[in-house]
């Protein structure tokens, strides 16, 4: 997976001549000197410290956190605090719900957006350009503004407070279609598809046996970015779900409402809700960075 973004068939390959330029010492890229490292290290600390602080706080008592000076290393209270967050904040159910929600959204988005992206990239049909242009145009329209009718719609369908109400609206994204179309256009040779058609393969067959294997790297990147976004989604889940059937973010919201005096419980909840994402990130951070730099258009 670490090599996928450098595979010759990927859009990343399009920049290899430029990379060569840079490596050959064209004047654009300076060698970093020590002030650069100092600045980057400080920024890295600022990026990570709030998360570390949540771990410190979540493993201590409320009194510890507000002591003077505040603690700088984790204590031994994590399990006690987690248990409180677990029992009173429905954290266990929240994690399960978030896993199901983010997993389904990631799978659905990857499948549907790859299908649509492939159709827009390689199939000729009436309205291809118009429909794609329309899709791209809507990327700038924030979906949060439709929350109220969406709430009414879900009420009519009796989906409010059910995780299906969180899954359905984000099962596809215009960004995903755009991302996959760009990738398919550049990574899948049309001749290969033509050969398949001449051999008598159906378009679906071609999609599943030729296109998907080629674009799998992009599907993985889109899946990870979508999973992260779905896991972290806040506004709509807070509106549609209640505290007895929360996602992680809804549970954190409730802990924030209920345990305002006891930051150790709040922080334990933050730790429980953030660790899965941090683990994903620690394992796949490189690919996510590559995906974001490649996508560059996600809002």
């Amino acid at each position, binding site marked *: 997976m670490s090599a996928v973004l450098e595979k010759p068939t990927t859009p990343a390959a399009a920049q290899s001549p430029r990379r060569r330029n840079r490596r050959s010492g064209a004047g654009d890229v300076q060698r970093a000197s020590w002030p650069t490292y100092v600045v980057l290290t400080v920024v*890295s600390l600022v990026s990570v410290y709030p998360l570390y602080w949540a771990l410190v706080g979540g493993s201590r008592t409320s009194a510890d956190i507000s002591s003077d000076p505040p603690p700088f290393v984790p204590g031994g209270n994590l399990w006690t605090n987690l248990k409180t967050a677990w029992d009173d904040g429905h954290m266990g159910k929240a994690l399960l719900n978030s896993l199901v929600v983010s997993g389904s959204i990631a799978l659905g988005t990857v499948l549907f957006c790859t299908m649509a992206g492939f159709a827009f990239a390689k199939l000729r049909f009436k309205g*291809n350009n118009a429909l794609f242009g329309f899709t791209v145009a809507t990327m700038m329209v924030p979906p949060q503004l439709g929350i109220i009718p969406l709430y009414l719609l879900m009420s009519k369908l009796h989906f409010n407070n059910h995780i299906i109400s969180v899954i359905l609206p984000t099962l596809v994204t215009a960004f995903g279609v755009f991302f996959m179309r760009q990738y398919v256009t550049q990574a899948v040779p049309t001749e290969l598809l033509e050969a398949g058609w001449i051999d008598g393969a159906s378009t679906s067959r071609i999609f599943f046996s030729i296109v998907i294997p080629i674009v799998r790297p992009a599907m993985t990147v889109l899946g990870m970015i979508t999973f992260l976004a779905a896991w972290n989604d806040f506004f709509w889940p807070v509106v549609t779900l209640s505290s007895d059937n929360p996602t992680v973010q809804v549970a954190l919201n409730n802990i924030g409402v209920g345990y305002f005096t006891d930051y150790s419980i709040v922080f334990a909840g933050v730790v429980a809700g953030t660790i899965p994402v941090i683990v994903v990130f620690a394992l796949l*951070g490189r690919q996510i960075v590559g995906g974001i730099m490649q996508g560059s258009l996600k809002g």
Partner: protein
Amino acid sequence: MASSAALPGRPRITLRQRLSLWDRSITAYGFIAPFFVLFFAFGLYPLLDTAWVALHRESLTASGSSWVGFDNFTWLFGNEYFRKSLLNTVTIGILSTVPQLLVALGLAHLLNMKMRGRTFFRVIMLMPYATSVAAAALVFAQIFGTDSGLLNWLLGTVGISPVAWEPGHWTSQIAVSTIVIWRWTGYNALIYLAAMQAVPGDLYEAAAIDGASKWQQFRNVTLPSLKPTILFTVVVSSIGATQLFGEPLLFSAGAGNANPLGGSSHQYQTMGLLMYQQAFTDGSLGRAAATAWTMFVIIILVTLLNTLLVSGRIRIPGLRRKGARA
């Protein structure tokens, strides 16, 4: 597609070819159908319906609605808290977007240098982006706490007396903006970095031969090349700022209770919070929808303004030069 039918010696396409062409167009529609069905039902329809709801008196508890024309808007613009939230959204938007993008630009420049641990720094700087708004806001609510907050302790060590972050107008807005800046700076830095790597090295070479200093190269080569990307990040950040919700909602947890009022004197109540309050606390869906529609119009205006500032021509970066920013 048509070329296969025009091959010499084959004046008529065979049934099989006809089936194949038919298969391709049917499959195309089949492949885009799931996207469009879901997209229309749960994305576009609610968005458009917001305009309809905004023109009605509609309540969360009672069923049915009645046409009131522009009454909701008239009520809004005469309402003190609406005007306050509008102003707060603008000031927090500026406080969060401007430093965020400037720092991101500088960071991208540093990350673009040859160095050890490049990937490490990039991944670390993206960690806040991977952190949820709820987690970030709750942690920062404690950091900005007045009596036992981490930041006031830190300020105390250098002899600065504690700041009452949450109750103050500017201090609370700065604190809320800090959460936004913390979460999004690294992400924007990566986007700038991607664009910087797409700038052809020859341009720098030529500039260097002409005797341009590093700063002049940055100013006259890097910045102009990054213009479309900068416009893009400004637009996206502005849209995000207009809808700011989770940060101010949970920041109030530091004051004792998370609620959509945005502080005791609504000092950091954004339009997103007000919309939530109107819809799900006050139960007035019409007014909430009118607020949403106002946000939408502001977003359009801000986008147009930003675009006009650059070239007067709408351009989505990446659409045309996609390969260039890969």
